[in-house]
Structures are given as C-alpha cells and as structure tokens.
C-alpha cells in the first residue's frame, strides 16, 4: 500500500508480509546512497518475558550482547561481505530497541539479503561467545569513563525504583558472565521473529523487490514472539532527589529530569511526546526566558540541552550540561516549571515554537538514518511517524500547561551530578 504525505512531500510503500514482518520503503529517486534498517522491538529493559508458557528472566545486558554476536554466520564473515560490496554495516542497542543497518551505493539487493540473513540466523559458537566477554568488558570500561553515560545511568538509578532502566544497557561485568550460547539462542527465538521486527529502506530502490527479499530470506512462517512482562509498578516519585559521583572532569557535569507518566501506545503516546517536546522548548529551550537568564548568569553554556525522552515504560523531561552550580540550575528549572504549570503560554509565542519544532522535523527528513529509525520506533509504538504534522496541529497552549502542572513537583525531580576529582595524579 502506498501512502502519500503531501505536507512532507513524502510517500511510503507499506507492506505487512505473511510472516508478520512490517516493511516500509521510502523512495529517494536520484540519490546514490541506499539504507536499510532492520529493527527488533527488543532492548535492554526486556529481561523478563514469557515464552512457551514459561516465565523467563535473562541476565542484564543480553540484548546488547546478542547484537554483538549476530554478526557471525557459519563460514562467513558478515562485515567482510558487506565491505566487499562497498557497504558499511553496524548496529546498536537501546533500552527498548535493537537496530541493524547498512548503507551502500551499489549491490543493494545483495546487501539486503545479507542483512536479513544474519539477523535471522542464530549462530553462537562457544569460543566466539567467550571471546566477546573481553570486548564487552572493554566497552563497559569505556562507558564508565564517559561522564555523559555515567551521569545518565546514575540519574536512572536515582529516579526509578523497579524499572530495569536502572541497569545500564551493557549490563555489568558480572551479569554478562551469565550469558551463554543457550541464553542467546533463547532470546533470539523470543524476540527476533518477523512479527517483532520491522524493515525500513530508503533510497532509489524497488519496493516489491525489498518485500520479495524479506520473504525469501525470512520465510513465510509467522512464529509468535515472546510476551514482554512489564509488571514494573513504578511509583510516580523518584527514589531519591539527588545522586552524586566523582570523576576527572573539568567542571561539574549534570543531568536532571522530571519523572513523567509512561507513554503507552498509539496516537495518545505520540501526542504526549509532542507535548513533552514543546514543554521542554517552553521551559528551557534556547528561546525560553530561563535559558537566557541561566546563560547570562554563567550557569550554563553551549553544552546545555534537553528534551522529552521515552523508553518502554518510562518517560522523562530532562536537561543536561556542564555547570559550576548544578543545584542552582535545578532550582531555577524547577521554579520555572512550576510557573509554567500555572500560566498559559502566550498564543504568539506558542505558535512560533510549534513552527520551529515543525521546521526542525522537516529538516531531519533529509537524514536517511534518522528517518528510517524513527519510522521503525514509532511503528512499534503503533503510530505512523509521518503523521506528526496533524499531531502538532492539534496541540494547544493548555496542553503544555497541563503537562507541566502534572510533573513540576520536587518529588518527581532528580538531579545527577558528576563532581570533579581535585586530586592531581603524577
């Protein structure tokens, strides 16, 4: 089915195959690059699930470990095969999705077959799984040395009591040692079924051939995916309101957030996200009075930024940056959010903000990467991303006020700070 989106000058060929795979193809005539994203609706937080009637618990970090190990096929070096075709292939794991993607300018059909093949084939030799531990150990070390990752991971521990977002995507050095080839097999069978995947392609390609490739490689069977167990029962308040750590940084690094209602699915969820985005703009976006005041007072610099973020079962309104006084930034943001939760934004300012947000989203559509990924991510939230103009159109200033009114309380707010270590090393 071809859907037209005149406001965006876009059209997309959508198909749902017999095996359950959703396929979206964005024609990009005249472009050299072609990109394909194959995304699993499965990420780091999905450690509890029901499969074959049994409740299962997987070790933390297994989604990411699985992503690393998918790049192997019997007698075939997957990355070398892509490279031989001039393509680059990569993958990443987020809290709630795992994405595999390639870009190429030639041999698109062969690349697509290979992508579908390696993601669809579980192959985990013992020695290869053992070797991966050393690599992920080093990745965990790199993550621990990154102030941005650490301040965020601490923040999640400070905010959430039960939700698995408390645990880093990579897991821990201990938890990854519980991962065996059998665990990887189980998680692959649970979550890498065609109906739990989506394929999105952008480029000067033929949509029918894309669908045919997916049928050829993944077959026509439609095995059921595991049921994700989301019995997290998270309280509305944060576990703690401040969490501190120390690293070798030049000035304090901070991230703060308000704990929001979990997003749910469908248009309501996307509307909440758009409202959250606009609330973030109104509260601490570059055109907000608060941003100017904090910048002119030297409390924030160009590193400051924020927005509304959602993960399966979590949503936060957050901002982060470097500051000599994170506590003062936190107090100012909290006070301003309380104010905006009571006052209506002037209509003119609100319309200008919407126009700006709309323009930025239009500009983003030039990126194959972000467009393919968003189409997949929103599809798993049961929404067509390209319908965002209508969602934006329906939002009113009162929505922003209500949103902020609901979250702008100290109990929902947490501040995570990395303080500099003063001690000099020789």
């Amino acid at each position, binding site marked *: 089915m071809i859907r037209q989106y005149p406001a965006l000058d876009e059209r997309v060929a959508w198909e749902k195959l017999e095996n359950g795979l959703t396929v979206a193809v964005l024609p990009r005539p005249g472009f050299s690059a072609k990109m394909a994203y194959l995304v699993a609706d499965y990420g780091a937080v999905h450690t509890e699930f029901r499969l074959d009637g049994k409740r299962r618990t997987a070790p933390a970090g297994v989604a990411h470990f699985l992503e690393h190990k998918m790049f192997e096929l019997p007698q075939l070096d997957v990355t070398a095969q892509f490279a031989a075709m001039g393509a680059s292939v990569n993958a990443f794991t987020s809290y709630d999705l795992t994405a595999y993607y390639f870009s190429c300018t030639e041999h698109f059909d062969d690349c697509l077959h290979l992508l579908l093949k390696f993601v669809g084939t579980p192959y985990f030799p013992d020695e290869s799984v053992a070797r991966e531990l050393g690599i992920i150990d080093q990745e965990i070390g790199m993550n621990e040395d990154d102030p941005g990752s650490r301040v965020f991971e601490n923040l999640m521990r400070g905010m959430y009591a039960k939700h698995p977002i408390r645990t880093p995507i990579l897991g821990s050095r201990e938890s990854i040692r519980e991962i065996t080839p059998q665990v990887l097999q189980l998680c692959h069978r649970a979550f890498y079924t065609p109906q739990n995947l989506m394929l999105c392609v952008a480029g000067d390609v033929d949509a029918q051939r894309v669908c045919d490739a997916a049928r050829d490689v993944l077959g026509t069977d439609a095995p059921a995916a595991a049921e994700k167990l989301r019995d997290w029962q998270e309280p509305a308040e944060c576990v703690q309101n401040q969490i501190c750590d120390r690293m*070798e940084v030049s000035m304090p690094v901070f991230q703060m957030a308000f704990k929001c209602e979990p997003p749910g699915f469908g248009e309501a969820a996307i509307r909440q996200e758009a409202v959250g985005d606009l609330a973030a703009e109104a509260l601490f976006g570059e055109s907000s009075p608060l941003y100017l005041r904090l910048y002119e007072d030297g409390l924030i610099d160009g590193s400051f930024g924020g927005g509304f973020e959602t993960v399966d079962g979590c949503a936060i309104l957050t901002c982060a940056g470097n500051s000599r006084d994170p506590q003062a930034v936190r107090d100012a943001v909290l006070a301003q959010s309380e104010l905006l939760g009571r006052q209506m934004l002037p209509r003119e300012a609100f319309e200008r903000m919407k126009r700006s947000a709309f*323009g930025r989203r239009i500009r983003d559509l030039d990126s194959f990467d972000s467009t393919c990924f968003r189409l997949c991510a929103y599809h798993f939230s049961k929404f067509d991303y390209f319908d965002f103009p209508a969602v934006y159109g329906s939002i009113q200033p009162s929505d922003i006020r209500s949103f902020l009114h609901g979250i702008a309380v100290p109990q929902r707010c947490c501040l995570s700070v990395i303080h500099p270590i003063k001690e000099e090393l020789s």
Partner: protein
Amino acid sequence: MVETVELLPGVVLRCCPVERFKQGCLSIQFLRPMCRQEAALNAVLPAVLLRGSERHPDLRAITLRLDELYGASVHALVRRVGDVQAVGFLCGMIEDRFALPGERVLEPMVEFLEELLFAPRLEGGMLCPAYVQSEQENLIAEIDAQRNDKRAYSVELLLERMGRADSFGIPRTGDRMSAQAITPESCDAHYRRVLRESPVEIFYVGSNPPQETARLLRKLFAGRGRDHKSLPATTPFHDVGGGDVEQCVHAAQGNLAMGFVTPITNRDPRFAAMQVLNTLYGGGMTSKLFSQVRERLSLCYGIGSSYYGSKGVGLVTAGIDNAQRERVQSEILAQLDACRRGEITDEELRCAKASLLSGYRAVFDSPGSVESYCATAAIGGIDASVEARMAQVAAVDASQVVAAAQALRLHSTCFLKGVES
C-alpha cells in the same frame, strides 16, 4: 555540479544547486592563518557575534528570530584545513517550498546573517564587553573540558607533542593561555581585521538558482571597504622530532594514541594509495586493526586509524586495559609491518577501495556532506572533483598500498594510564 562565482575580490561563492533536499545549507567562512596568536580569538569571534546584534540584542531575540524562520539554525563554525583556520557561521533552513504560502526562508536568512556579521551589538562603539568576557569563559571551559573525553584528550596531547613546530600542533580552538589573554579590546580589533582582510568562502547547497543566490550574497559584502590579504599555501608537516608522552588519569581504561608521519599529503599523486592503506589498516570493521586487535585478540573495544591528508599525519587510537599497553602497541605496529611486507589480501584491498568509493558516491546525498567536502577542498586549495578522486582510488593497486605503508613512520605516542578513583 558546483558553480563558482567571485562575488567581489576575495569573496567567492560556491553553489551546489539541488532540489531534492528538504533543507538548504549555507556557510560563510573567513579564512585566517592557523597560528597560536589568533587561534583562540578566531574561535571566540563567531560565538560573540551570535550573542546579539543591533536589532536582536540577546540570545533569546536571536533564537526567536530563528524560530520564526521555521527552526533555522546558525552555528559558530571553527574549522581547521591545513594551515588555515576557517571561522564563521554554518546555517541550515527548510527549503522555501515547505514554508507557508508567500513566505520565504533563504532571503530573510541571508539578511539575518548580514545583521549578525556586520551589525553586532556594540557598547561604546566596541563589541559588547560582557559578551566577549562570557564567551571567553565558555571557550576556556570548553578547552578544559577536552580532558573529560580521555580518548580525544590523548589525541590532543599527542598532536601537541608532534606538532611543536607546525600549525597541526595548535588546538583547533586555540590553547588555554591564548584564550585567557583575550580582552574586549583585542576581540573588537580582531573582529574588524577579520572582516577587512580575510578571504571569504561561501557555500550554498539548495534549490535557489546560483545567480539569484549570488545577488543575495553580493549585497552582504558590497561597499564594505575590504582589503583582503591572500593566505600562503599549506606547507608539509614540519617535523622537529617525536617523543612519548605518558600521563595518569582517573579512569577505568587506559587510552593509547600513536602518531605517524608521511611525506604523502593530499597534494601528492600517492594520496589515494595512502587513503586505501588507512582504510585497510584501521579504517573500519574489516580493517586489520579491528579484525586482529579487537576481534581475534579481544584486546580492546574501540580501535581505529585516521589520516589527515592536508599534513600527512596518521593516528591510531585504542581504549585498552592498562596492563596490555605494550602488547597492544606492538600488535598495532605488527599489523603495519604486515602491510609493509605486502601481506595484503585481494579481499582486503577490494574492501578498502569499495568503502572509499561508496563514501565518495554518497557525498552529494546530504547538504551537510556536500558543504563539508567542497569547503574543505576549496579552502585547502585542492582542485579535485569527487569523480577525479574516485578514479584515483579505483586505480590503486597492492604495490602502491605497500609503498604507502613503507612511507608511514611512527613519530610519537601518548598513553593515558587509567587509575581507579
């Protein structure tokens, strides 16, 4: 595909007229010599100009104007190309066809840029001192914060060591001491010098016709009383000897950076062979470094090589276990030795060339990559089209890659030893 128009003496516009994008891209760059005396001044200048103009006197007023222009962006641009430091603005804006009927975006955007560049907020006839001081503090904080990213910091220390007598050793945004020396007076005098003397390179990627774009942009510079001074061509890397740097840092990992030098620059006929070597050696997931040091030996997660053609400098970086430093370093050199001995498979060569060719083909697929490729080539004085570069890469054979490897020499190393805090 790129049309060049000399708007005025010393002001060149390069247009890439394309209609298939949803956004246009415009950059205005003033070219300065990359030198210690003015690197920090150059870096702070666009940030100061973005703080306020006569009509839009503070950050908020500027952002509100950009919001009106459908979320257009203007970023300070500080770019190093060989011995040149290019400073100015990089802008992105939706194509006019997405604006409301009767509204345009590019034309008011150019007018806004004129205001930011030529009508900044002044106090007592000078650039607003409070803005200069504030952006000076931000620049110093940014320089200090380079230490936060240990891998980038290891490269910074390495380049400082390698480039003691070359512009490549000067940090892109200047060093801390030069940033501290900035005053409102020095910044204002420098602003006027930059406008008066600097050659200007303007790039536009979008659907507006080149002649129409030239008309809009010519107005910016007409009648400004400029007296531009040409810059000397980039010189080869000036080598005064290498050395090893080692420092302890609070970190879980160690970070190793190794610097190599070669007489082969992007002005050399052997440039394509060096690019192929870099890709094959450490440029991606099929490279020798990735497949051997990471995948076979599990010695690290992140490892890779890069090559700076303007100066003929190669780098290898890796995040490693402290205890494995010597083993990793010797394995990195062993893989280069393998290239020098000609231990390069047909497959490795084919993969490296295919990867480079694919990258070149995709240059014209996004406004940002067009701007970046064309600006870097033009500022660097490189007269090579994408097609010409592709033909050179396609013609590279194994013997040329071996010769490139033999022309690469280890110069210096930097090791940041991680100490648990």
